[in-house]
């Protein structure tokens, strides 16, 4: 461990986002690292192997301290200069991780010793998973898992050997992620209750480094949504969602503070084991808006968001078609990239676009570097997501005094209250009614827009969001400084999980 500097250091752990991918979470991360210059940020990014180049220019107080590319060929190694451990064996490693992360009714912290072992013996992780005994123990644990019964868990679908092979490989990557050494820091700021928490769990167990979880969407909910919409069979859905659930429960159990962007998401966190007393919502914020430009009154509807099933672009297209039937001059502009892996979904959207006859009326304009600027061209801003945290796109629209028509998911209602119209997810008629009404009644639209502008200035200034994190990070850094750093030899389970309720659903 390197000598401590006087500036507090934050290990910022991300999964598939900052600084390699553009999106809401990445925008938030960038706001935090640039808005809190008194902290030094060591980024620990967990990504797929194809992400290499950072797309954000990091400020001087931030650097990429570690970048773990899952599914790549690299194996974890001993840190330079670290002593060589004896040829440690842990043939139960795969089984422990499987039970601890996929079991329905297990204590989430039971898996911590196995994760700690991975960090202590990084060079033994791959050889351990190459050992026949590890595979045998893993299969036995898988059979136990299949026999597990819980009223909320339903039946485990039949798992074939190929599923077992895939799950074994995934488990080996969980171990490799835990083995990844992270830069020295005073606090871990984890941005999703998923894979990125694994290094933070080990750091907390070994050095007492506190964990702050900032949750934007709800990781486990989005994993379930993705699985429910996919064409995967029951076994693949089972493994994907159970793993997400296990990682989320582990995160909520280990986090000292869980900070959702909206209180609306706290219900999930509590249900999965976060103690209510440790949940501190910190809503997103936007820079203080100036006087808004008047709406163009060109019957233009703007939407901003990636082309992704969670954004339910298909519903948006149907809403557009319905609105065009009622307001023939209405024009729809959509800004947002097609993220890697969603190419097929984007193709489907384009086919629907053609089938609905929206050529010239609904334009996919691709990414924008100025999401605030593009909503100025709107008379109404539309959002049809089926899952959200506290969407920046809505705040940006409100900051420009544009009325928002949106589905009421996540913390949207909290943001848009009195400044727009909401409908149930997938409610094409309801959303189309709202958009049509606002396009036909620009005075009403303007009134709602002005309310939204005032609401953002009052409730959601970016500075308030930054102050919230400054306070939380400062408290956790201070709390750690006040307590001697525990020795690595101390039992990891004593170091984590204070306050965890251990909810099982």
């Amino acid at each position, binding site marked *: 461990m390197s000598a401590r500097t006087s500036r507090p250091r934050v290990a910022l752990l991300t999964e598939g986002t900052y600084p390699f991918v553009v999106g809401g979470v990445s925008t938030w991360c960038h706001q935090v690292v640039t808005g809190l210059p008194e902290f030094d940020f060591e980024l620990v990014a967990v990504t797929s192997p194809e992400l290499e180049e950072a797309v954000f220019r990091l400020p001087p107080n931030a650097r990429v301290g570690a970048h773990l590319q899952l599914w790549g060929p690299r194996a974890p190694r001993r840190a330079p200069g670290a002593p060589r451990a004896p040829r440690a064996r842990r043939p139960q490693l795969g089984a422990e991780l499987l039970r601890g992360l996929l079991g329905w009714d297990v204590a989430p912290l039971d898996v911590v010793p196995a994760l700690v072992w991975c960090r202590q013996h990084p060079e033994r992780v791959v050889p351990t998973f190459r050992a026949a005994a590890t595979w045998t123990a893993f299969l036995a644990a898988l059979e136990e898992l*299949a026999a597990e019964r819980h009223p909320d868990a339903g039946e485990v679908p039949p798992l074939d050997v190929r599923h077992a092979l895939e799950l074994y490989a995934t488990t080996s990557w969980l171990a490799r992620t835990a083995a990844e050494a992270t830069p020295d820091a005073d606090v871990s700021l984890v941005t999703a209750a998923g894979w990125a928490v694994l290094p933070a769990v080990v750091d907390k167990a070994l050095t007492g480094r506190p964990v702050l979880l900032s949750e934007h969407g709800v990781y486990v909910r989005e994993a379930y949504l993705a699985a429910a919409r996919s064409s995967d069979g029951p076994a693949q859905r089972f493994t994907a969602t159970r793993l997400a659930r296990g990682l989320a429960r582990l995160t909520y159990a280990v986090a000292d503070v869980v900070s959702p962007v909206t209180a609306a998401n706290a219900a999930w966190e509590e249900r999965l084991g976060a103690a209510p007393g440790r949940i501190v919502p910190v809503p997103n914020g936007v820079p203080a808006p100036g006087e808004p430009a008047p709406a163009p009154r060109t019957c233009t509807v703007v939407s901003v968001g990636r082309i992704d099933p969670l954004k339910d672009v298909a519903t948006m297209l149907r809403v557009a078609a319905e609105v065009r039937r009622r307001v023939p001059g209405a024009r729809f502009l959509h800004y947002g990239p097609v993220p890697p892996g969603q190419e097929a979904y984007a193709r489907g959207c384009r086919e629907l676009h053609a089938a609905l006859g929206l050529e010239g009326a609904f334009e996919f304009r691709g990414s924008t570097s100025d999401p605030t600027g593009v909503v100025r061209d709107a008379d109404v801003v539309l959002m049809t997501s089926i899952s959200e945290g506290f969407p920046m796109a809505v705040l940006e629209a409100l900051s420009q005094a544009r009325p928002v028509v949106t589905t009421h998911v996540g913390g949207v209602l909290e943001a848009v209250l009195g400044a727009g119209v909401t409908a149930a997810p997938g409610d094409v008629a309801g959303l189309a009614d709202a958009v049509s009404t606002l396009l036909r009644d620009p005075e009403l639209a303007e009134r709602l827009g002005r309310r939204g502008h005032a609401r953002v200035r009052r409730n959601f200034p970016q500075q308030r969001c930054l102050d919230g994190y400054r306070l939380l990070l400062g408290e956790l850094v201070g709390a750690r400084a006040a307590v001697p750093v525990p020795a690595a030899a101390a039992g990891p389970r004593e170091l984590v999980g204070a306050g965890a309720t251990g909810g099982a659903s």
Partner: protein
Amino acid sequence: MRITADQAGARVLAGLGRHPQDALEAAVVLEAWGGLTARTSLPLASGAVRGAPAAGEGAPPRRVRPVRRERDGDDPRRTREVLGLLATLLATTAWFAPLSEALGRDVAARSWALALPLALGAQWALRRRHLSTPGGLGRLRRDRPLVVTGALLALLVPPGLLVAPELALPGALLVTWVGGMVVVVRGWGLPYAGALVLATAAAAAGVPAVLDVLAVVLVTAAAVVAAVGTLPVPKEGPVPWGRSLLAGALGAGTALLVVLDPAVEWSGQQPFPVVALLPSLLGGLAASRRLDSVWTVLVAALAVTTVQERAAARPRLARVFARIVAGATARLLLVAAVCSALLLAVLQALPGPGAPVRELVPLLAGLAAFGLVGFLAGLLETFTRAVGAVLVVAAALAGSSAAALTGLVDVVPGLLVAAAAASAAALVPLARLVRHPDRTLATAL
């Protein structure tokens, strides 16, 4: 919104078109498509999952997607690759006579004997490090140690050929064989082969042999730069050096068998061993093609076997795997035998005195056996059985040495003894590999 547990269950069923997997999935549906808040949907979700049948019930049979790893390419590309390799070997073999004349037979033979293990080792290492993943060739230009080594060779060999050709010749062969493989893998095997044929013709027409080799080295170096430079760099990183170097050592070790075998005459009158290597090379390619079906046929068999059934199904799965390995081995030996017979016929038909059949047959049989050693070591190495692979090569080298020391080579070709020793050493690791196909694939990380 008020909703009863029954209504919630019906809403979930309608949203999913099936029963929910568990309570959380039910909650997600109620929230995302039912418009309920999390505080409402989560307590209702438990009721929605009660009475649901097993998640697998009513599900359509699993569609098995073939999986292929370490895929080298489609059939036309593979054919081009084979033709390119053939041309490279034949052309460089054709240099032997003019170079022997220009530099002396001993110098030429020593150069070939030095270059062969180095080139084979480099080819195996390169294949493992970069070419075992699609598009890996483009990554070569980011691999600093390889770029530096390649640049040094490209800078030193051409002037070396002019100043001290007897010293630079092994380097020239190394550049040609390894560079040729890179160009061929890029898909440019046929034009490259054409260039080599031209060079061979030039040598036959009286162009000084050293200048001819120099031209080929320059063409090869330029082709490698173009081949690697015109491909995008894949985002995925290379295979670590440890595993790549092990593969390289195995390749070099198998080549040593040929180089050290006293029966393989490098400076005598019999057909040059590089030509005689062709049948085993082609056999190896045929065998590796058959082994690819591990990722289709075997994985398909595993996909229709549940975890609970696997113990009972093990003999059936082991038979599938064993058939693939046995089929690959048979292909290697069959293709090598047929090609050896053809080569023998061609060599006998060539004008000139020719080598006697009694010398050629043991040589070709020995080199086919050498191909078998490479195949066995490569098979074990592919499934990360490093110890087994090293044992196979070590046993082959020991067998070959023992045969030479005991005089057994007077009766049986040393390479046949080496192959027998390697096969014996491979028996146990291969049996372990084949007996537990699921374990083999799981632990081949």
